[in-house]
């Protein structure tokens, strides 16, 4: 596994909640759920695409967070930890339903035909084409984009959470952007 240069999240405002949960405080769990429940739910939808199932797995994540609060060592932000739990649970659920994830080769070198700025499209269509293209991306690419821009995890945090190298994080990001470009080109949006 790659070495990650992670800052110690000493100022993570969620850490006291985890400590309180470890001490049996249910209100701390409620607070944690209120803070991050929607984030986790949104993340689960990437992998599951099924709202009722995502809500079900969300409950599992919360239960796991409660049961393992005492094991949390503060080596990552609490949110990262929760998302990692959510990811494991989601992948287990997907396996259980025998749904195959889209395989991707992370080490594939990107050929980048620079055919037109995405910005132009967005101005014209107000995100509609781009959002549609996002939904056609493989789960892995949607996941990396979401972790960066919606959950605001840093490169090292994502690498740690997904157990991949930071280089892979970056290449996966660029690949996602190029995939978006290709999808939009194929639809005549660019």
């Amino acid at each position, binding site marked *: 596994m790659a070495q990650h240069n992670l800052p110690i999240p000493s100022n993570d*405002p969620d850490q*006291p909640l985890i*400590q*309180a949960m*470890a*001490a*049996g*405080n*249910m*209100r*701390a*769990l*409620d*607070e944690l*759920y*209120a*803070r*991050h*429940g*929607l*984030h986790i*739910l*949104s*993340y689960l*939808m*990437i992998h599951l695409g099924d*709202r009722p199932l995502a*809500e079900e797995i969300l*409950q599992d994540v*919360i*239960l796991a967070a*409660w*049961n393992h609060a*005492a094991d949390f060592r503060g080596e990552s932000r609490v*949110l990262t930890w929760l998302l990692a739990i959510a990811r494991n649970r989601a992948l287990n659920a997907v396996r259980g339903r025998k749904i195959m994830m889209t395989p991707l080769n992370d080490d594939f070198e990107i050929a980048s035909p620079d055919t037109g*700025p*995405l*910005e132009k499209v*967005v101005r014209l269509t*107000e*995100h509609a084409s*781009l*959002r549609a293209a*996002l*939904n056609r991306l493989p789960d892995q690419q949607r996941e990396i*984009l*979401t972790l*960066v*821009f*919606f*959950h*605001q*995890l*840093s*490169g090292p945090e994502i690498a740690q959470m997904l157990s991949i190298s930071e280089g892979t994080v*970056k290449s996966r*990001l*660029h690949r996602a*952007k190029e995939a*978006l470009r290709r999808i939009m080109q194929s639809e005549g949006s660019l």
Partner: protein
Amino acid sequence: MHKPWSDLIPFYVAGTLTPAESLALERHLATCPICQGELDEWRVVSKAVQAEAGQWARGLPPISSNILARLQPIQPASVEESPEQYTPPYHHEETRKAPAPSIQKWQHRPILTLAAAVLIITILGALVLVTFNPSPQNSHQTEVALVTSLTPGIDDLGMGSGLTPGGFGAPFPTQNDLGILPVASPTPPANQQDFSISPTPTPTLQPPPGATPIAQFAGFIGGGYTLMTTETVGNLASGTRVRISHAWYDGISWIYFVVAPDETHSAEVRESQLTYASDTNSANPTPFAGWNAWIGSPYVMRTTTDIGTIPAGSLIRITGGHYDGEQWIYSITTEDQTQSAEALESQLKPPSDFIPGMVTPTTVFDSAFRNNNLWAALTEPVNTFPVGTQVQITYAYFDGFTWIYGLTTTDGQSLEARETQISLLPITSTPAPTSIPTTLAGTLTPTTGQTCMPTYYHSENCPLPVQRGSISAAFQPFERGFMVWRGDTGAVIVLVGDGRVLNYPESSYIGYPDNPVTDSPPVGRVKPISGFGRVWGNVETVRNLLGWGLETEQGYSMTLQYTTDPVLTSYFYI
């Protein structure tokens, strides 16, 4: 060669680089058009991702009872706080810190929204647009005092001074002073930095400041008699066991409608007036309202389904919300204000560019729109208004990205601008609209010479018949201004020659004694009586500003120019 920089750009857009990395990248961006192009692309992608991911970040279900039942109780070991004593660092007690008034009777009070508060404050703001004629004899056929809204003068009746031009340090009337229930403060938690504009809005990981706090007793809504009152409230004695029928948040604290075991006594109590009965020891929190940030917003949300007679896709605003123990229910009103309904979270959607979970930041110009003496200037052209245009803030709302301010120029034109497009002018003195005479000495002449139909006024704006109303009014000229009484509201309005306008609602002076001034007026001057006398005689500042009356008061028919502007409700003409 651009690869290392290129790799940083998405994280720069996301705001997750270290300060040093950001700085280095910014220096590179300044010289690299290729990277600038990439930056633009990633910003576009970022927005789309946030919107797409955000659509799923809605409607958080409660933690299921199955899960709650499976939570393994853990005996506190090293942590000193007991579960019941624990207060999370971002718990919303701060929101409830202000002592909440006890409620003695059932009175369903709608949540006062930020927009409503702004509206009311704005209505009490001062802006005189055109000149007015001091001659009472000509009051039916003279020039016009076109007053849009008025400065709260009630400060001078015991709430601090709002009169001194340089006295901006004096406490401005709060919503409480104005008899308005305050909204939950938008002030962020102490550890959050002040809002600064970021090119990419960032989802927050914290509960929004000003968000509806967790209801301590939400888990008991609809439950049995498991709580009790901590003090006498209405017919309920202190210590009465009660059940909660329903609850809502009124901007100060959660309010519970509680019923005693005899099912005949009930009361509306605040959270602080309830406690757990001795055999009760836990509660489930109320989840955050998904659209909490939009309560009180302008008409920017839409319905996703038909709701009663309101069709799907209608533009609405949320006027309030409450949690019924299972879900949030919002009161909505259509844009034409003809229809209202209650809607569930899933039946509403915010503007397409709304970033769910985003904190509504503190407004940079919060004090400016609370204090209508402050003026700002455009820092960049907005529509046809050039840089430097002087404006006053009349209302404000957060559109999901930045605060947007409704502005009024010195000549009464309206525009909206983002926070980045205005800056406050140095505080010197109360700037008056340019069309206001600086003194009333001598005879004023009409400034425009425009003749209005049929026996009306000279002004820049004639009253329009279709929007015109007429009310009884009274008028009295003074040495340095006028007093006007509006028969429809009972308000006394003081128009000072230097352009200041002070408003005294009837409630602010009705309890004062008749003019207590015993001095006799100089020859040719009169001492005001009735309502004018109450204000003039009891408020020394008004006396000093206006001087003695020139003539006795007289009644007249005041023409009102109603507007469709939600902020400027009416002009009146003297």
